[in-house]
């Protein structure tokens, strides 16, 4: 075999394990889901194999699903904005600190060592009726009766921010860390104040990281079902809870499949838009 032929084959050999894993674990199940979504669940509880549009019709026309889809996207959007506002300064601080970056990043990763569910449930001990905050407020005498702080949209967002903030910080950090600090010094020397240099130079150069962090927060936030389950009230269900409900509780795989594909398409469209935006950003050369 010639050197060229060997070199041409090599990437495929190296990629083969990854490609087979993606095919087996992602692509094949996805095809199953697509097929399922056209089956029909009969009154007897058995699935009828065939090509029925009933599930899709229900998923797309029922106001209930649409409302929850919108509120899911709204919650994900608010969570993303809060993560960006809280995460950016933190990432900036870490990126600009001398020497101890590794320790700060390690601290940031520390929560990942505890199960996401436990982290979410910890809020019950903090905000619950007999939780830490109520106990504190009562002992100080600010309130007489415990306040009901849990099980609403705000606590769902709180839980999501708690879960997603490190992803935002990490992504912004990576892009801030790659920015030459001489650039801000240069802007300063040319007459820009610290704030003006930040707005003119650092912020635009860190946008790819902010966008990546934002996308991750949004997609993970919109796809979550544990947080609303643990920290939300009955009216705070998010879209993934509907999928969970359909598949696990009602054992209605066809409807659950159609619903999960709906969410997939919406979030997929978002990723495409992001790609498209970055594609345009590439026109502004040098961001690479």
């Amino acid at each position: 075999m010639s050197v060229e032929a060997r070199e041409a084959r090599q990437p495929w050999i190296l990629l083969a394990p990854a490609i087979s894993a993606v095919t087996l674990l992602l692509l094949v199940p996805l095809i199953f889901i697509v097929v399922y979504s056209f089956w029909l669940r009969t009154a007897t509880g058995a699935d009828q194999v065939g090509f029925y549009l009933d599930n899709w019709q229900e998923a797309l026309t029922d106001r209930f699903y649409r409302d929850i889809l919108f509120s899911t996207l709204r919650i994900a959007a608010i969570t993303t904005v809060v993560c960006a506002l809280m995460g950016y300064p933190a990432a900036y601080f870490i990126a600009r600190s001398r020497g101890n970056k590794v320790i700060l990043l390690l601290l940031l990763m520390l929560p990942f060592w505890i199960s996401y569910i436990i982290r979410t449930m910890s809020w019950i001990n903090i905000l619950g009726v007999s939780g830490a905050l109520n106990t504190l407020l009562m002992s100080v005498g600010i309130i007489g009766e415990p306040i009901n702080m849990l099980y609403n949209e705000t606590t769902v967002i709180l839980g999501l921010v708690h879960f997603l903030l490190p992803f935002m910080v990490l992504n912004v950090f990576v892009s801030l860390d790659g920015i030459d600090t001489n650039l801000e010094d240069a802007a300063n020397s040319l007459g820009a104040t610290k704030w003006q240099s930040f707005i003119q130079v650092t912020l635009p150069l860190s946008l790819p990281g902010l966008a990546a962090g934002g996308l991750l927060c949004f997609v993970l936030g919109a796809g979550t079902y544990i947080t609303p389950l643990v920290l939300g009230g009955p009216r705070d269900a998010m879209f993934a809870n509907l999928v969970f409900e359909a598949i696990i509780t009602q054992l209605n795989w066809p409807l659950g499949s159609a619903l999960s594909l709906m969410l997939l398409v919406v979030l997929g469209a978002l990723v495409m838009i992001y790609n498209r935006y970055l594609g345009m950003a590439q026109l502004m050369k040098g961001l690479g």
Partner: protein
Amino acid sequence: MSTVILDKIVKRFGTFTAVHPTNLEIPEGTFLTLLGPSGCGKTTNLRMIAGLLDPTEGEIRIGGKSVNNVPIHKRNLGIVFQNYALFPHKSVADNVAFGLKYRNIPSSEIPGRVQKALDLVQLPDVGDRYPKALSGGQQQRIALARAIVIEPDVLLLDEPLSALDANLREDMRVELKRIQDQIGVTTVFVTHDQSEALAMSDQIVVMSAGRVEQVGTPEEVYNRPASEFVANFLGASNIIEGKCTGKDAETAALDVPVFGKVPVPADKAPHVSEGAAKLVLRAEKLLLMPQGADTTGMVTSEAVVETVDYQGQTVRYFIRAGDRQFQAINMIDGHPFAEGTTVTVGFRPIDCAGLPG
């Protein structure tokens, strides 16, 4: 354009002193070079003048006014960084225009000024491009254009040529000097490259370990090194320990091993007095000759060639005379002396300098 004065400047990082008490005056319009090995505090000094670092002690004055409490964005300085530091997300024209936006300049005038600056650095047509699309040398010129378009009081350059390859570096050296002459701005240039410093500067400040070793014109620091460090840092020198047997207004009579009596001009041995002294003999001034050659006016010795380092036009020899090794760098036409040859080596006393022992 302004005189810059460093008045008893000290910079400490924690317990480490990067700059020991330093006094320096950089007269208006001067091209001054901070020269020294890596880590000697050149950049620290430059960053203090720029306002990117606060001096631990002392005062910096620019144009007669203390700038210790003037933030960098109000100092009106042009800085060129070693890695250019061009804004990658802005076009070349926007890079150059950046500083103009923060000055009270009518926006209609900005394109004209940008173009003038681009013309000055001889890159008139790259305004629409992005920095990534330019070569290293071109980026360097744009960085320079961006720094001078604001008509700074002082131009600060931190090893601006060191990232360029050798040929380009020599071109840019000439170019940079031309531009500085043309606009006449007070310039502080940092380098560890002695030939760069000698070629470009009006004044050279030789630094070592946070201290100023010598301040002078290139000719002064080269021919009259004030210390052994300076003698060795600016080209290769042979430092021969001996003694001074007498000094008058004309000459300092040095007596050194191997060569014997060497009457060094008194002005090249200002700090030498009777007693222990050192002779500074530059490697380029020590000539190798065939035995029996005419050596009128020279101090000579017999020597054996030990090592020959052939470099084309020049050859670097290590020779042994008596029990000592000396270094000589000679221009040649033809063949270098072969290793093992016995030769006559000699130098003219007026080419030497003396240091106190």
